[in-house]
């Protein structure tokens, strides 16, 4: 089995089934600014950290010192690796003076001199522009041979957008494309493994984020589902934090299930979710991801309805995450939630606001698949997840439930409805769907007071003679 070198980027290792194959050649293609240089440097330093030796040769006229001064600001930079385990060289002068044969000789000599096990050739298009197509093909072939004999990984960077039929793409072992894309006013980066011999790749485009720490790749949540172990069938029930609701559900929500709380604004979805979270303890740790209310606001809200989130928060059995509903990378969110849940053996997860997730998706059609992927991954680690989803209509006609593709992807659906009778605003709760279980199908009116959700009409309404 051929040894694999980590790319130094967890998500890219996932896409490439473990990283670059030793003795193989790869092309990383993308427009200027797409992150090729960062990716290649990140790979080199990760390789050096694992005991390898890397050589970074640039064919660009731009000084590698300038690049190095920029790279040295990145979190992955390891100054102590220079100049022994990690070397930067310019091949531009040799290419100018001696052409491709001279450059090939230089690569061969330097690979040997540095005993490099990984080499980056930055600006491959410069070499291509100096030769005919035939000469360039011969050069790539020879270069692969040189890297192969040295048993090194060769990574060639180019900004040229050449199609899949061009010689370098057919000859190399792998081809990775970085892109800068726009959708409306939104700009985003993607990565796609177009080719990787001898490896089961995660196909298609995946999101990329570049920060001071380097490149992070987030495989599309739904693309990693095959690698998710099937959830065990849990027989027990998980209390919702409301005894009346537990009775409707024959004891609570099935453990290891996904539940959708759907309803119009003000119907009590978040409050019901907080009931569920308030039972977080050492045996059943909790995690909440919210978008619209800060953790301080959530704590205050819980206190106002008599729910104690302070105790589990203080003893560390509950974690509140808050992300403003901006242009989040949903795949990063999914990755983060699952990792946090796994690390703390979380059993109770509340995601408050599917609208924010939908709005963050560049392609909204992915929504049900993303939610299915998140649910499956959480179930696989024994967690139960509750989602809240806002329905635009102020009052939902229960005879015509809104067609929501999410409800088909979850195990349980609870409808929280609102209505007006007389001069009073009222709330109603119905169980619409419960995984493999019987449930009380009746609609129950409820109100929210200082003790949380309480079944029955609001006593103030009853006192005013509006009850009925």
């Amino acid at each position: 089995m051929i040894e694999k070198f980590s790319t130094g980027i967890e998500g890219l290792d996932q896409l490439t089934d473990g990283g670059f194959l030793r003795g193989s050649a790869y092309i990383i293609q993308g427009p200027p600014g797409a992150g090729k240089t960062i990716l290649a440097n990140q790979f080199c330093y990760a390789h050096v950290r694992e005991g390898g030796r890397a050589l970074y040769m640039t064919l660009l006229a731009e000084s590698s010192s300038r690049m190095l001064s920029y790279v040295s600001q990145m979190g992955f930079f390891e100054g102590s690796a220079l100049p022994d385990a990690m070397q930067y060289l310019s091949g531009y002068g040799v290419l100018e003076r001696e052409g491709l044969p001279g450059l090939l000789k230089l690569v061969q000599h330097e690979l040997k001199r540095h005993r490099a096990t990984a080499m980056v050739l930055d600006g491959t298009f410069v070499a291509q522009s100096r030769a005919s197509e035939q000469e360039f093909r011969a050069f790539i072939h020879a270069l692969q041979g040189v890297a192969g004999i040295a048993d090194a990984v060769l990574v060639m960077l180019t900004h040229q957008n050449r199609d899949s039929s061009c010689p370098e793409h057919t000859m190399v072992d792998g081809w990775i494309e970085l892109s800068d894309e726009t959708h409306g006013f939104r700009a985003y980066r993607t990565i796609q493994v177009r080719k990787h011999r001898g490896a089961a790749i995660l196909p298609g485009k995946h999101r990329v984020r570049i920060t001071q720490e380097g490149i992070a790749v987030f495989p599309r949540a739904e693309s990693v589902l095959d690698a998710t172990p099937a959830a065990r069938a849990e027989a027990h029930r998980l209390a919702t934090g409301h005894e009346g609701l537990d009775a409707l559900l024959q004891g609570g929500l099935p453990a290891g299930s996904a539940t959708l709380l759907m309803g119009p604004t003000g119907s009590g979805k978040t409050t019901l979710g907080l009931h569920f979270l308030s039972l977080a303890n050492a045996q059943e740790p909790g995690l909440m991801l919210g978008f619209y209310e800060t953790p301080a606001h959530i704590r205050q809200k819980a206190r106002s309805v008599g729910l104690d989130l302070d105790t589990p928060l203080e003893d560390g059995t509950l974690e509140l995450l808050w992300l403003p509903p901006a242009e989040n990378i949903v795949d990063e969110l999914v990755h983060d939630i699952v990792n946090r849940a796994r690390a703390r053996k979380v059993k109770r997860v509340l995601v408050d606001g599917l609208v924010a997730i939908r709005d963050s998706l560049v392609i909204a059609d992915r929504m049900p698949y993303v939610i299915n992927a998140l649910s499956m991954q959480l179930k696989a680690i024994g967690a139960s997840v509750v989602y809240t989803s806002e329905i635009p209509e102020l009052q939902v006609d229960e005879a015509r439930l809104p067609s929501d593709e999410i409800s088909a992807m979850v195990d349980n659906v609870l409808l929280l409805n609102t209505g007006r009778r007389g001069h009073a605003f009222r709330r109603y709760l119905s169980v619409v769907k419960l995984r493999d279980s019987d449930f009380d199908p009746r609609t129950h009116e409820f109100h929210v007071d200082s003790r949380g959700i309480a079944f029955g009409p609001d006593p103030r309404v009853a006192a005013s003679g509006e009850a009925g």
Partner: protein
Amino acid sequence: MLRLLLVEDEPDVSLVTATVLEEAGYHVTVASDGCEGLEIALQEMPELIVTDFMMPCLSGLEMIERLRGAGYDRPIILTTAIAEQQLPRQPGYDAYLAKPYGSHALLTLVEAFRERLEAGGH
């Protein structure tokens, strides 16, 4: 006119540096890698060498080590983007100039060595 050897593998950096030094009145010979630099230095015995660190064939430090071994005892300025404290021990060079450098920093350092040489010191 002080004879200076510039050893630099990046053509643009080499061209700009040589121009700055020539305009300041130095006679500049250029080598494009460590092997060429070693050969020219031993042949022409320049009064001052300005050399890059990471270069093909021989690195700046390898070249300096061989030069010192061969008895070359004139000043050498090492230029590199690597921080000086991260450079290997036993350097053999007389001054360090961080890359990317400006013409003022370069000329100030070269001038200081010229004055020292003219005063008869190393």
